[in-house]
């Protein structure tokens, strides 16, 4: 299961690589092919010498050319209307297969673009083709500041949190239903403490999560370092990514307590539900809380002091995403980060305590969900005892 992800990545990369190879070969083949063309230029924009270079001829009239294409006597006919801004360039061509049919339009486009390019200044061409490059330098507190690069290091925790919940959420949910479904709860609870079992399960999930993360990251790194060109991956310069120790530490703290909070919640749901199937039904509710704040992502970036952002940042179930995102973009104040971390710490302790209690009291209920009155009632089961002498 752990190796399935890197294997899938490897397969995807292999498909991309061979697909790129094949596409490159197809493009080369297309370039070398010759086909018969006739062109009618009512726009007056085409360069006549260029038309000759392409081997294109002028037909007697439009309909004659179209009929020739229909009858197979001509490979392609291009009609450039007078007003290109309001009418389409018409391309009539002999079918050459799904992939090769696009070459005709490509040639018609190149013919027009090269004709026009020759009549304007190179700078104007670059502007019109949106090939003008920009370099941008921003400053914050007297120092050079690159907002996107600053985002990377603390933003890693946000990505990590998403991956862990998506990949392991279900496992956390069903980790405590295993004992119930296998009916081993009585033997377990009379051998080890419920708290010990829950903590052990959480640690094992964390260890599994790290192994899975490594199994995901390592093949990506290998592909990037050794096969970047073959896979057409962008060249990322990671050497000058700024590392702000305070923001990284804050991001790490928010991540850890958020992970513990949701782990406790998911484990608690697993303990309360009689089967894994019922437990899965609750997972959707949890994902709404986790992923719901994403709908307001622009607010977190642009209006961090708004009431909604502050509420989402401090309400425990929605806090992780806003806090991590605000920390990543740099608008999370130290005060807000401390408040958020404390809230998440307390909430994670509470959720784990509830998980242990639910496991303790719920684990012998094999067919019903545990009512909340039982969970929070200190003495949930009653026995009336009195002394009686033996016979």
């Amino acid at each position: 299961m752990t190796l399935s992800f890197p294997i899938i990545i490897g397969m995807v990369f292999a498909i991309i690589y061979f697909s790129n190879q094949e596409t490159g070969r197809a493009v080369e083949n297309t370039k070398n092919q010759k086909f018969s063309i006739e062109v009618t230029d009512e726009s007056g924009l085409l360069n006549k010498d260029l038309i000759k270079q392409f081997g294109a001829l002028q037909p007697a009239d439009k309909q004659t050319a179209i009929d020739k294409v229909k009858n197979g006597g001509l490979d392609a006919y291009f009609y450039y209307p007078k007003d290109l801004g309001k009418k389409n360039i018409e391309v009539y061509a002999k079918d050459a297969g799904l992939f090769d049919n696009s070459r005709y339009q490509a040639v018609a486009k190149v013919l027009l673009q090269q004709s026009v390019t020759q009549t304007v200044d190179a700078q104007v061409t670059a502007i019109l083709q949106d090939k003008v490059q920009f370099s941008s330098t921003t400053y914050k507190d007297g120092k050079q500041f690159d907002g996107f690069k600053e985002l990377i290091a603390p933003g890693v925790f946000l990505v990590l949190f998403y991956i862990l919940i998506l990949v392991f959420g279900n496992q956390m949910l069903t980790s405590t239903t295993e004992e119930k479904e296998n009916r081993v709860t009585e033997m377990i609870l009379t051998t080890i403490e419920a708290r010990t079992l829950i903590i052990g399960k959480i640690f094992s999930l964390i260890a599994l999560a790290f192994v899975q993360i490594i199994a995901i990251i390592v093949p990506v790194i290998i592909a990037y370092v050794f096969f970047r060109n073959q896979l057409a991956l962008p060249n990322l310069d990671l050497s000058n990514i700024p590392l702000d120790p305070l923001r990284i530490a804050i991001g790490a703290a928010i991540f850890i307590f958020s992970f513990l909070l949701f782990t406790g919640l998911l484990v608690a749901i697993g303990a309360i539900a009689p089967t894994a199937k019922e437990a899965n039904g609750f997972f959707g509710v949890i994902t709404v809380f986790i992923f719901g704040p994403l709908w307001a992502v622009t607010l977190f970036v642009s209006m961090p002091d708004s009431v909604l952002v502050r509420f989402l940042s401090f309400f425990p179930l929605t806090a992780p995403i806003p806090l991590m995102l605000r920390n990543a973009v740099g608008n999370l104040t130290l005060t807000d980060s401390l408040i958020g971390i404390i809230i998440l710490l307390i909430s994670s302790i509470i959720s784990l305590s509830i998980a242990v209690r639910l496991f303790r009291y719920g684990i012998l209920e094999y067919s019903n969900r545990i009512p909340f009155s039982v969970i929070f009632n200190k003495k949930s089961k009653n026995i009336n005892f009195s002394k009686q002498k033996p016979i």
Partner: protein
Amino acid sequence: MDFGKKTVIKDLSFEVYKGEIFGFLGSNGSGKTTTIRALLGLYQPTSGDLLIDGKPFSVSSGIKLGYLPEERGLYKNESVIDVMSYFGRLKGLDVSEAKKQAMDYLDRINLSDKAKTRIDKLSSGQQQKIQLGITIMNNPELLILDEPTKGFDPVNRRLLMDIVEEHQRRGATIIFVTHQMEEVERLCDRAILLKDGVSYAYGTIADIKKKFSGASLDDIFIRVYGDENEKTKENS
């Protein structure tokens, strides 16, 4: 002890002496399992005391407990040896000792060739024997067996009784929950009969028989619990 509006245990008091085999008898639904679960802290009493060695039971109390619950179950997707070793480790054995005790037991019950077989591939009788083996791992000083011979054929029933007697000879205290009277007669030193949440008879086997004018335990059981079947028929 109440479950909702239903009172399961009304008035119950007994002692189990160290080193004896104590029979806990009653018809289905009489409260035997409930009492055992309360004794082991799985249920919480609101009054009265359930004590082992003078204190309430907890897994950290240091008592070497072997508990075979009435609700049978094992990790179905794991192999026999892995499950047995896992529980042995939970009981405090190291890896090699847990494995050794597991294999010794499997040899005894002629299932050593099933060591690497998944639990769900075994028959229910074989699974029960595995669960019994887990119960007696690490030589418990207190053995609580809740209907241990349920589903066993006579050969395996005899095996279980031999195991129980062996552990008593080693000094273990055994609580034996059952309604198989021949097992009670063979094994138990003292017993309690539970009916309608109340102790109906309590003491040595001889004393119980004397109370019922020397009748056999089977007859006593039918006499005590026979009217419950009549009531059930009338109600249905």
